């Protein structure tokens, strides 16, 4: 199939338009974060005067640095717990026959569709009574619960693709069950678990509603929630620059994931949904 020059130009234009539309809003917030306070209201797309002042400013306030530590810590711990628990359940779903399997799948589906706002009111009250309000566990627990359906879906799709006969073959070759697991199955399962971890991490990193509802101080408030309430480094200054700089900082991990693991993310997103 030879593509003519004209067709090539057509596809090239379409590709370019898609890429530009996807990236312009991101470039805009990057540009704002480098604008000098004197030019931030000049409404030009690129800064006329570049400065690191906004970044220096936010890293000096505990409001941002605490939030960044909270974001990283809470998202990592929640992701780790969710992936471990989801792997156990997904292994059972993919490999074992037991009554109640469809109940588990139905329940995960229900939770995946659950409106988070419906839980905010009761969770707010429950966490205040239990002393979990405005603590790390107070956010980690709901994140694990909402990360689990995503994890169980993606992982059971991945686990179904693993050639499990290899485990038997390894045992016949004299491997102990532990060796069969660590040397044969774990390396095969690791890519799926890693992909799932990225998706769950993005979910936790992204959350805003739980983060603003179940926290009240820098104790556990994550970056998205913190920048929602930023007031600027001085009260006479609109916080545009600070918010943009903070926004760019929390976008960096996402860009890194996307650049390094583009294929995995696509496979993870589509495996659970389409293959069912």
């Amino acid at each position, binding site marked *: 199939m030879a593509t003519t020059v004209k067709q090539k130009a057509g*596809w090239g234009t379409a590709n370019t338009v898609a890429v530009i539309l996807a*990236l312009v809003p991101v470039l*805009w917030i990057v540009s704002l974060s480098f604008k000098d306070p004197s030019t931030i209201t000049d409404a030009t797309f690129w800064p006329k005067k570049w400065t690191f002042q906004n970044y220096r400013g936010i890293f000096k306030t505990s409001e941002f640095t605490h939030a960044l530590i909270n974001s990283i810590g809470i998202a990592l711990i929640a992701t780790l717990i969710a992936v471990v628990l989801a792997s156990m359940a997904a292994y059972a779903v993919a490999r074992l026959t037991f009554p109640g399997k469809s109940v588990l799948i139905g329940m995960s589906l229900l939770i995946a569709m*659950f409106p988070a*706002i419906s839980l905010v009111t009761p969770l707010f009250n429950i966490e205040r009574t239990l002393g979990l309000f405005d603590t790390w566990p107070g956010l980690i627990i709901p994140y*694990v619960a909402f990360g689990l359906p995503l994890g169980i879906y993606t992982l059971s799709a991945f686990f179904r693709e693993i050639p499990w006969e290899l485990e038997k073959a390894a045992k016949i070759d004299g491997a102990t069950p532990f060796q069969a697991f660590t040397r044969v199955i774990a390396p095969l399962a690791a890519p799926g678990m890693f992909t799932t971890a990225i998706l769950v991490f993005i979910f936790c990193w992204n959350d805003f*509603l739980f983060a603003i509802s179940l926290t009240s101080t820098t104790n556990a408030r994550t970056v998205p929630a913190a920048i929602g309430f930023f007031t600027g480094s001085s009260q006479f200054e609109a916080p545009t620059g600070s918010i943009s700089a903070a926004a760019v900082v929390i976008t960096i991990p996402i860009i890194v994931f996307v650049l390094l693991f583009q294929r995995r993310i*696509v496979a993870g997103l*589509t495996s659970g*949904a389409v293959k069912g």
Partner: protein
Amino acid sequence: MTVHAEPTTPVATGTPAQTGHRRRHLSEGARAERRLGWLLCAPAVIVMIAVTAYPIAYAVYLSLERYDLRFPKQAKFVGFSNYGAVLSSPYWWHALLVTLIITVVSVAIELVLGMLLALLMHRTPFGRGTVRTAILVPYGIVTVVAAFSWQYAWTPSTGYLSAMLNNAAPLTHYGQAIAVIILAEVWKTTPFMALLLMAGLALVPEDLQKAAKVDGATAWQRFTRITLPLMKPAILVALLFRTLDAFRIFDNIFILTAGGNNTYSVSILGYDNLFTALNLGIGSAISILIFLCVAIIAFLFIRGFGAAAPGSSK
């Protein structure tokens, strides 16, 4: 690998003899498997129930009480009067209308754009990886970050988009603000739709397309008569996911308008009743009503359109 494979052969021939032996212990084996299955699922199930089932039951209870956080001692069982208050309030119906408009319009636009993007990624002879990487950025970016980008872009004297339209201030007008909210929502979530549709496109056999082409079908005929019908399951799943997701819209509105100029969705209304009005009873009633709306939408999709609930085939 071949060295490892060889010893398995004699065992493989021995399997039929072993089957009979195994069948006798099947019930015991099945019981052990069942126990292991439950054991492995238990932690996940416990967390999910603790965070969703129990609170939603508690929300039902709270919604039947008069419970103002400022006067917690005066909490009192009032039956369905909170629901009466919400359902007779114009705010609830306006929020529902706004939410439905945003949901229907943004999902419709996303379906069209997502399909175009999916076709592009499926068919483009070069640059496929670049496009895929670029569109994953809107998918992965924090919604609040994207919402700020759009907010500043449309703020007069700060934003380039506002400057391009003679210092327009769309976020201060009801209709235009809704349009900006939809724009932000569409930009953020079209990639997700496109990726699901692209996976659906991959399932359409190339041979059918070629055969139809030989028979003289135009590109449009091939798309509507072959591609679309074969993609129906993928499209319905993508629509179901996105509709339920759009109905819960919160982050974008919170940052863009904070619900000002009557742009509040049901989620924003529920949030305000809890954290501004501090009314747990009314807030819980709204929560339960939103939950019911989501359940109705899911039911309509699965029964009405015959969308296979993901996982139902397992």
